[in-house]
C-alpha cells in the first residue's frame, strides 16, 4: 500500500518538475508579445491567447505537486503547536471531509462540462483566436487528477501511520 502511495507521489513529482517550464514559457511568450507590440507594432490574438493555456496548465496541473511539498498555505496558529500525531489526524480529517468532497464535486461537475465542450469542438470567442477551448477547459481535469493522486496517497499514508503504529509499538 505504501509503495502505491509513493508511486502516486512520484507521478505528481514528475509532473510538477515538467511544469517548471510553464512559468518560463509564460515569461518568454509574454515578453515576445511586448517586443512585437511595442517595438514592431505587430499583435496576434493567437499568441495572446496561448498565455491562457500555459498559465492554466501551470496552476491547475501543479495543484497536486504543490500539495506534495506542503506549500498550500495553512492557518497554522494552532497547527504548528500540535504534536506530529495530532497534525496527522488534522490532515486526515481535512483530506476526508474537505479535500475529497471538493474533488468528488469537481469530478461530477467537470466531466459533463468538458465533454460538452469537446462535443461541439468549442473554439475561441475571438474570430482569430486559438480554436482549442475544449483543451483549455480540459485543464480543469488536471486539477482534479493531480489532487486526486495526492489525496489517495495522503489518505493511505496517514491511515497507515495513524492506525498501524500502535500494533508495531
Amino acid at each position, binding site marked *: 500500500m505504501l509503495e502505491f502511495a509513493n508511486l502516486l507521489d512520484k507521478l505528481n513529482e514528475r509532473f510538477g518538475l515538467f511544469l517548471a517550464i510553464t512559468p518560463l514559457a509564460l515569461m518568454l511568450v509574454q515578453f515576445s508579445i511586448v517586443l512585437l507590440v511595442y*517595438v514592431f507594432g505587430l499583435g496576434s490574438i493567437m499568441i495572446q491567447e496561448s498565455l491562457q493555456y500555459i498559465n492554466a496548465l501551470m496552476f491547475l496541473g*501543479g495543484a497536486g505537486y504543490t500539495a506534495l511539498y506542503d506549500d498550500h498555505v495553512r492557518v497554522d496558529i494552532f497547527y504548528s503547536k500540535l504534536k506530529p500525531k495530532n497534525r496527522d489526524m488534522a490532515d486526515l480529517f481535512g483530506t476526508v471531509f*474537505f479535500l475529497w468532497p471538493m474533488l468528488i464535486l469537481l469530478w461530477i461537475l467537470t466531466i459533463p462540462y468538458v465533454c460538452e465542450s469537446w462535443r461541439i469542438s468549442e473554439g475561441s470567442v475571438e474570430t482569430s483566436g486559438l480554436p482549442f477551448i475544449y483543451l483549455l477547459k480540459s485543464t*480543469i481535469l488536471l486539477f482534479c487528477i493531480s489532487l486526486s493522486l495526492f489525496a489517495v496517497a495522503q489518505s493511505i499514508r496517514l491511515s497507515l501511520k495513524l492506525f498501524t503504529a500502535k500494533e508495531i509499538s
Partner: protein
Amino acid sequence: MDMGILFTLLMFASLFAFLMLGFPVAFTLAGTGVIFGVIGILTGTLDSSFLEFFPNRIFDNVIRNELLFAVPLFIMMGITLEKSKVAEDLLESMGQLFGNMPGGLGISVTLVGALLAASTGIVGATVVTMGLLSLPTMLRRGYDPALATGIIASSGTLGQIIPPSIVLILLADVMSSAWQQAQLSNDVFSPTPMSAGELFAGALVPGLILVGLYICYQLFIAIVKPDRCPAVKKSENEHLDQNFYKKLLMALIPPLALIISVLGSILSGIATPTEAASVGAIGALLLGALRMDSQNSKYFLLTIASLLALLFITNIADLRMDLNIVQLSDKIAFALAIALTLVFASGLFFALKQSWKSGILREVLTSTVRMSTMIYAILIGASLFSLVFRGYGGDTAIEHLLTNLPGGQVGALIAVMLVMFVLGFFLDFIEITFVVVPIVAPALLAMDGTLGPIWLGVMMAMNLQTSFLTPPFGFALFYLRGVAPESVKTSTMYRGVLPFIIIQIIGLLLLVAFPALTTWLPTKLFG
C-alpha cells in the same frame, strides 16, 4: 430569522472553526462550500442547479483572467532577485552606505523591504527572508532587539502596499468587479472600470508616506537614543575607496532601475501589469545572471544594452513595415532592430543556460509553480465557497446588515474595517481578498458617501497590514518569531512593534482625513 440567514452565519462560523484545524486553506474553503451545499440541497434550502455553474466560473473568472498572469511573473521576478542574491547585495550595500550613521542599518532594512518585498506579497515569506537576512547583522552591530524586530516586521509588511505588489493585483481584480456590481445596483448602466494600474497609483503615495514615517521614527530614535541603533564602527567599514563605491553602485542601481521601470511603465499607462511583469522577470533573470556569473558579465551587459538600444530605436523610428510608404531611415532602423533583437535573444538564451547550470533557474521555476498554484488554489476554493454562500442569499444578508448599521456609510465602513482587522489575525491577505472583499465591497461601494474603489482598496490594504503587525496574533510577528534567535524574547518583539502600529494608525487616519492622498495620483495619471 429565515433559514438563509441562519445558514449564512453558520457557514461563516464553521469556516472559521475548520480553518483553525490547520488544513490547507484552499481545500478547507472548498470543502466547507461542498458540505453546506449538500446540506442546503438536502434540506431544500438550495437549488442544486446553481452548483453547475462552478466549472464555468473557474473558466471565466480564473483561467481566462489575463490580469492574473501577472501573479506568476511577479513571483518569478521576486524569487529570482532573492535566489540570485541580488536582494541580499542590495541590503548589504545600503547597510554599508548608511551604516556609519546611527540608525542607518535599520533605515536600509526599511527601504529594501519597501522595494523588494513587493514582488512576493506573502507576508510570511517576506518577513522570514528579511528576518534571516538582517536580524543577525543588526543584533551583532548592537541594535536594541526590540527596535530591530520592530523594524523587520514592519518593513516585511510594507511591500504589500507598495506597488508593484501581488496582493494589490489580486485586490484590484476583486475590487474592480465589486465596483462594477456596485454601480449596476445604483442603476449606472455603463459602469466605469477600475484597473490594477489605478490601484497601484492610489497606493503609491500612502505607501511612500508610511516609508517616510517609518524612517522619521528611526531618525528620531537615532537622535534621542543613539545607543539603541549604533553606527557601524569605522574599523569594519574603513576601506571606503573608489572600488567600494563602484561595487555599491553596481549593487544599488540595477535593481532600483528595474523596479522603477516596471512600476513606471504601469503607472504611465504604457504597459499592462502583466506586460510589465514579464519585463521585470526577464530583467531580474539577467541581473541574477550578472550577479552569479561574473566571468561572463560582458555578455549579459551586452544583452541588457541591446534591449535598451532596441527601446531607444523604437522611440525615434517607425518600425511598422506594412505601411504604404516606408522611409529609408525607418528601413535601416528596422534592420537594426531585428539585429538587436537577435543579439538580445541569444544573450537571454545564454543567461538562461548559465542559470540553469548553476541550478538557480530550476529552483526559481519550481518555486514559482508552487507559489502561484497555491494562490490560484485559494481562488478556486474561495469561489466555490462564495458560490454556495451566495446560493443561501448570504451576499444580500450581508448587504442588508451593512446598510442597516447605525451611522450609514461611515458606520458600515468602520464595522468592515474592524472585522477585517480581526480576520487579519488568522487569515493572510490573499484569503481575505478572495473571501471577504467580494462580499462586503459591493455593498460598501454602493452606499451614499463612498469614496470609490481605489480609496477603499488602499484603506483595506493598509488596515490588513496593521493587523499583521498587531500582537499577539499578527502574522508578521508569528513568522519573525520563527526565525529570531531564542535570546530575543517574544515580549521584546511586541514592545518593538508597538511604535510601528501607532505609525500605521496615523497613516490610516491621514487617509481618512485626506482621501486625496490616494485619489489624486490615479486621477492625474489615468484621468
